[in-house]
C-alpha cells in the first residue's frame, strides 16, 4: 500500500477539547450549552476553526501558501452544531469551504495545515490541497471542488449503511449555490425515495460566489425546496450554535431511526470574500458589517457567560488554547517534508493485489 501514514503528535489542548464527548440522552448528543464541559468543547471547536482560517488567510497574504482557498469565517456555528449532533461512526461530506466541517468532525490540525502547505505529511500527501481534504478515520468523506459534488455521494454512503443494517447517519454540507445544481435534485430525490439516513445541511450564506439567493432562486427559502422531495425542510439561524444543534439533532435522530432525510437550511454569512480574487463588488460594506455584528462565536460566548455556564476565564482559555493549537499546527506542519514529485504516479491507481484500503469508506471504519 502506497499511503504514507504519518504519526502526528496531538497537542494537550486538542485532546481536552476533542476528547470530550457530549452526554447522550435517548441516543441524541446533548446541546452545546447543556453543561460546562460540553459548552467549553463546542466553543473550543469554533475558535479552532476561526484561528485556523485566520492563519490560512495570513499565510496566503504573505505568499507562503499556494493555490486557492475559501474561508468560512463567520459560519463556525453551523459546522460545529451539526457535527456535535453526530455520533461516532457517523459521516459527513463537505465542500470547497470545508475547513470548518473538517475541524468540527475532529480532524488533526497539523495534518490539515500540512496539506495546505503542500507537505507529504498532509492529509492527501500534498495532492489535494484545501479543496480536497478528507479524513475517513473521523468520518469525513471529503471536501469537494465541485459545487454539489458531495450531495449524491452522501446519499450513496447512506445507502451503504442502510443496506448493511448499520445505524449510521451522513450529514451532507453544501452551500445555497449548490442547490441550483442537478446533483442537488438528484441526490435529495434518491435519499427521499430510498428513505436514506442523510441530513442535508445547506449553509445559506446568501451568495454563491457573487450571485445572491435573491436572484438565484424564486422561493424565499432553500428549505422550501424540501417539499419537492417529500422530506421535512427547516430553516434555522445558522449563527446560533444551540439552535443549529437542536434541528440537526432532531434530523439525525429521525434519520437514524428510519425516518429518512431532512433538508436543513442554516442561514449564515461568510465574512471574507468568496476566494482570494473577490473584490466584493456584489455586496455592501454595511451588509458585511451587519453580519459581523452577529458573530456566532460572540453570540455563544455571551449566552453561556450570561447563563453562568462558563466564566470569562473559561472563554479566554478556550480562545487562547485555539490560538496556541493553530500556532503549533503551523509550526509542526512547516517542519514536515515537502511532497515529492518523484512518486507522483504511485497513487493514480490502487494496487490490484492489495487488501482493500483501510481508509476505504466501504469499510466499517471506527474513529
Amino acid at each position, binding site marked *: 500500500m502506497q499511503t504514507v501514514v504519518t504519526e502526528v503528535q496531538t497537542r494537550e489542548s486538542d485532546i481536552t477539547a476533542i476528547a470530550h464527548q457530549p452526554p447522550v440522552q435517548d441516543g441524541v448528543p446533548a446541546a452545546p450549552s447543556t453543561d460546562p464541559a460540553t459548552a467549553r468543547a463546542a466553543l473550543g471547536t469554533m475558535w479552532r476553526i476561526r484561528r485556523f482560517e485566520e492563519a490560512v488567510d495570513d499565510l496566503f497574504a504573505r505568499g507562503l501558501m499556494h*493555490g486557492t482557498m475559501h474561508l468560512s469565517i463567520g459560519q463556525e456555528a453551523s459546522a460545529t452544531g451539526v457535527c456535535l449532533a453526530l455520533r461516532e461512526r457517523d459521516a459527513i461530506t463537505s465542500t470547497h469551504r470545508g475547513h470548518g466541517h473538517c475541524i468540527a468532525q475532529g480532524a488533526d490540525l497539523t495534518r490539515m495545515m500540512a496539506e495546505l502547505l503542500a507537505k507529504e505529511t498532509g492529509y492527501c500527501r*500534498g*495532492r489535494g490541497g484545501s479543496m480536497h481534504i478528507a479524513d475517513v478515520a473521523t468520518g469525513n468523506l471529503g471536501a469537494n471542488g465541485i459545487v454539489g459534488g458531495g450531495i449524491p455521494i452522501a446519499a450513496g454512503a447512506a445507502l451503504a449503511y442502510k443496506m448493511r443494517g448499520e445505524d449510521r447517519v451522513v450529514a451532507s454540507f453544501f452551500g445555497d449555490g449548490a442547490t441550483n*445544481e442537478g446533483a442537488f435534485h438528484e441526490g435529495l430525490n434518491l435519499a427521499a425515495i430510498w428513505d436514506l439516513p442523510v441530513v442535508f445541511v445547506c449553509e445559506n450564506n446568501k451568495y*454563491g460566489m*457573487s450571485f445572491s439567493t435573491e436572484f438565484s432562486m424564486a422561493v424565499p427559502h432553500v428549505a422550501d425546496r424540501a417539499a419537492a422531495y417529500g422530506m421535512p425542510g427547516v430553516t434555522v439561524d445558522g449563527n446560533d450554535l444551540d439552535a443549529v444543534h437542536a434541528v440537526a439533532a432532531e434530523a439525525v435522530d429521525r434519520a437514524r431511526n428510519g425516518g429518512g432525510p431532512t433538508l436543513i437550511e442554516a442561514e449564515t454569512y461568510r465574512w471574507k470574500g468568496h476566494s482570494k480574487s473577490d473584490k466584493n463588488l456584489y455586496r455592501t460594506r454595511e451588509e458585511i458589517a451587519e453580519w459581523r455584528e452577529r458573530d456566532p462565536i460572540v453570540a455563544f460566548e455571551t449566552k453561556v457567560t450570561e447563563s453562568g455556564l462558563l466564566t470569562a476565564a473559561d472563554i479566554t482559555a478556550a480562545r487562547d488554547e485555539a490560538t496556541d493549537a493553530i500556532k503549533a499546527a503551523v509550526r509542526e506542519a512547516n517542519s514536515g517534508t*515537502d511532497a*515529492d*514529485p518523484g512518486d*507522483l504516479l504511485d497513487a493514480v491507481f490502487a494496487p490490484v493485489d492489495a487488501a482493500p484500503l483501510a481508509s476505504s469508506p466501504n469499510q466499517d471504519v471506527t474513529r
Partner: protein
Amino acid sequence: MTATLPQTETQAESRELTYSEAIREALAEAMTADDRVFMLGEDVGVYGGAFGVSGDLVHRFGKERIRDTPISELGIVGAAVGAALAGMRPIVEIQFSDFTCQAMDQIVNQAAKIHFMLGGAVSVPMVLRTPLGSGTGAAAQHSQSLEAWFAHVPGLKVVMPSTVSEVKGLLLAAIDDPNPVVFLEHKLLYRTKGHVPAGADRVPLGRSVVRREGADLTIVATGIMVSRSLEAAARLADEGIEATVVDPVTLTPLDEAPILDAVRRTGRVMLVQEAPGHVGFMSEIAARIAGSSALYSLEAPIKRLCGLDAPMPYAPALEAAMVPQLDDIVVAGRALATQEA
C-alpha cells in the same frame, strides 16, 4: 452570417492588450454588431467573471445580455442550445472547463448532434468559452485539459487560441460560425500581452499556423505549450538546432497539411501537449503522420511529450512535474534532433 462589424477609425492599428482584454473586445464588438449575441454564465456580471474576462461588460450591455446565472452548468448550456435554436447567438462561459462535466449531456448529446440528427434542418450557433489548464495550484478538479474529449465528438468545433493577437479574431469567427464551438482559453494566457488588431478581422477557424520555421525538427504544440515550445526552439537555435513549430489552433476541423508538410521537411517530429498523453489529442496527430506519406520522411520515431497520466496534484513541485516545462521541451528536442536513425 453576422453582418460585417462596423469599422472603426483605428481599424489599421493594433494595440497591446492582454488575452482577457482581447476576448472582451471581441465580445463587445460582437454584441454591438449583432443584437442576437448575448452572454451567460456564472458570475459574469458585476463580479466580472472568475478570471475577469467579462470585466465591465455588464455596465455596457446590461444584465439581460451579460446574464448572471445560478450554479447550474447543465441548465446554462441547455439554455444556450435552446436560445441558439430559437435564433439567438449565445456565448456561454463555463467558469472552469472541468465543470463542462456537469453540462456534458447538453454539449455532447444535444448541441453537437442536433444539426445532424435533424437532417441539417437547423443549426446550433453557440460558443462555449471556458478556461482550461494547470499552473494555478487549483488541483485535480480545476486544472484539467479536456480538449480531446470535445475533439472526439463529431459536430463540435474545438479551438485552442494560443496567442493574444489571434484570440479576438478567432472568437469573432467562432461567434459567426453556425455550429457549436468549444473555445478553450488557457488560464496562464489571460494576463499575457500582445498586439491585437483594432478592427473586426476574423481569424478563420480550421487553419494550422506555422509559428517558426527550422530544418532540423518539427514541434507540434497546442495551448500554453505553443509559447513554451517557441521559447524552447529559441534555446535550441542557440545550440544550432533549428525547429519548426506548428500550432493547429483549431483541433476540429483539423488542418493537417501544414503539420504533415513540416514533418516531410524536417524528418523528425515532437508532439507537445499539457493533457495526459494516453489517448490525447497528440495521439491523433501521431496517427495522422503515421497514416500519411510523411511517415516515409521520418528519420526517428515520433516523439510525444505530454502531461503525465495522473490527476493534477496540488503541491507546486508536483504540479510542475506533471506537465512539460521549458527545460523538458529543450531536452527532448535536443535528443530527438540528434537521435541516430
